[in-house]
């Protein structure tokens, strides 16, 4: 009987731990939002975060979008050929990039780059007592560390997504024109004609949500890092994994909200 109950007990403990974690992250998010609207504001830290999270993520997001756009054009062309629908390549590449692949892949790449480094930085600050030092110097760690990073990521991800969308569509264009014999002007015309405002806007909203998630997970796991190198390493891994899973889960929910019939 005990042997039968052991897995059930383990499942119960796991479920309780997961619910407790969700509760803690929710409280952390509410705390972050409440500090977002209350002074003091650290503009210099916000500027640094904007540079690091936004500007310096451009190459990785751009390259990801470029190759994804190209691969998407090849895939849609190969699939469309089965139905004599090769002409849909420009519009499907554009819609696929701006609605889904631009924000999701951009979010995941930034999660890998930013959530990891934020968790490592904040985690190291915690284990070396720098966060305690901030408190003794009359500086609230949420305001000084979390708010600038979360705000910077939330504002810069939509911009990164927009740039990624353009580069991804250009990737599809280059492949379409050079490998699939599309006429350049017709390709661009089809791209623009079939793209609607909400296709682009929904992707940008997703980008903002993913940016919030990435920075929040980095800060949460950093602030709750265990001791020593192992604790910081675990916090870094947890930040990337949880940010990635939350991006994919929230992407599904947002898609349901935006596009369900």
């Amino acid at each position, binding site marked *: 009987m005990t042997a039968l109950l052991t897995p059930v007990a383990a499942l119960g403990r796991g479920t309780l731990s997961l619910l407790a974690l969700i509760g803690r992250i929710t409280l952390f998010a509410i705390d972050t939002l409440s500090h977002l609207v209350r002074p003091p504001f650290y503009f210099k830290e916000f500027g640094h975060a904007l540079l690091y999270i936004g500007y310096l993520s451009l190459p990785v997001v751009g390259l990801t979008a470029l190759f994804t756009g190209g691969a998407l054009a090849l895939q849609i062309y190969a699939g469309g050929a089965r139905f004599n629908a090769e002409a849909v390549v420009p519009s499907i590449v554009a819609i696929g990039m701006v609605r889904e692949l631009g924000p999701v892949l951009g979010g995941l790449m930034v999660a890998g780059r930013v959530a990891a480094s934020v968790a490592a930085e904040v985690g190291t600050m915690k284990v070396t007592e720098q966060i305690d030092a901030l408190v003794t*110097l009359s500086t609230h760690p949420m305001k000084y560390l979390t708010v600038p990073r979360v705000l910077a990521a939330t504002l810069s991800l939509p911009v990164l997504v927009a740039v990624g969308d353009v580069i991804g569509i250009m990737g599809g264009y280059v492949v379409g024109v050079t490998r699939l014999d599309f006429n350049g002007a017709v390709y661009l015309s089809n791209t623009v004609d079939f793209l609607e405002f909400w296709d682009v806007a929904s992707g940008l909203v997703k980008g903002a949500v993913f940016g919030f998630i990435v920075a929040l997970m980095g800060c949460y796991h950093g602030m709750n890092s265990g001791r020593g190198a192992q604790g910081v390493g675990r916090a870094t891994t947890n930040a990337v994994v949880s940010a990635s899973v939350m991006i994919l889960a929230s992407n599904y929910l947002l898609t349901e909200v935006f596009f369900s019939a």
Partner: protein
Amino acid sequence: MITLDNVHKTFGTNAVLRGVNLSVAKGESLVIIGGSGTGKSITIKSVLGLVTPEHGTITVDGKNISNGDRDAFLARFGMLFQGGALFDSLPIWQNVAFRLLRGSLKRPKDEAREIAIEKLRRVGLKPDVADRFPAELSGGMQKRVGLARAIAAEPEIIFFDEPTTGLDPIMSGVINELIREIVVEMGATAMTITHDMTSVRAIADSVAMLHDGVIQWHGPVSEMDTADDPYLQQFIHGRAEGPIDAVR
């Protein structure tokens, strides 16, 4: 005057503080000694509000620390952390002047830099250190920068958490002298945590020994060697035999 009255703090099943009663008079330099893991750091972190005790009250000048304006309260304190706790991303002068560059004590940037360089000079560091980063300094220099940061805003109360740990005997002596000079010069109240008996004799007006979550002995440093408390005598003479278990 800092007073701790029946302070308890537990982490999980580990009761670290089990009723600490302690008072430090204004201008007094108190050193807390005790074995590793006996709650010395938790005691001073409780006073600063970095750790919240489950029971007991802590007052500073008769006011409960959990009431009132937190920024104004913390502005009265300076703290030297065990590892320095310098901010890696900031140059040394901005570390020292951190409190002077933001918040209620904010000064113009040039003035804050001047004060930082003056405080660096006070702890024996040259002005050219000001624009370097913490990672470029030795452990002893980082400790001195931490000390400069602790005194930058001229606090009334300064805490020193193991100020000489990890330093060679000469650098330890330098830090001990600096702490004593600064405390006397500024007329500040000081609480220091250390295992280093040389530091105790150099820094302390009075000594409190923390053992098993309570203050085991508290008295003037001049009476420490002649006190008949077996715990205190075992600790200050570093004996393996005695009432304190060597294996904990």
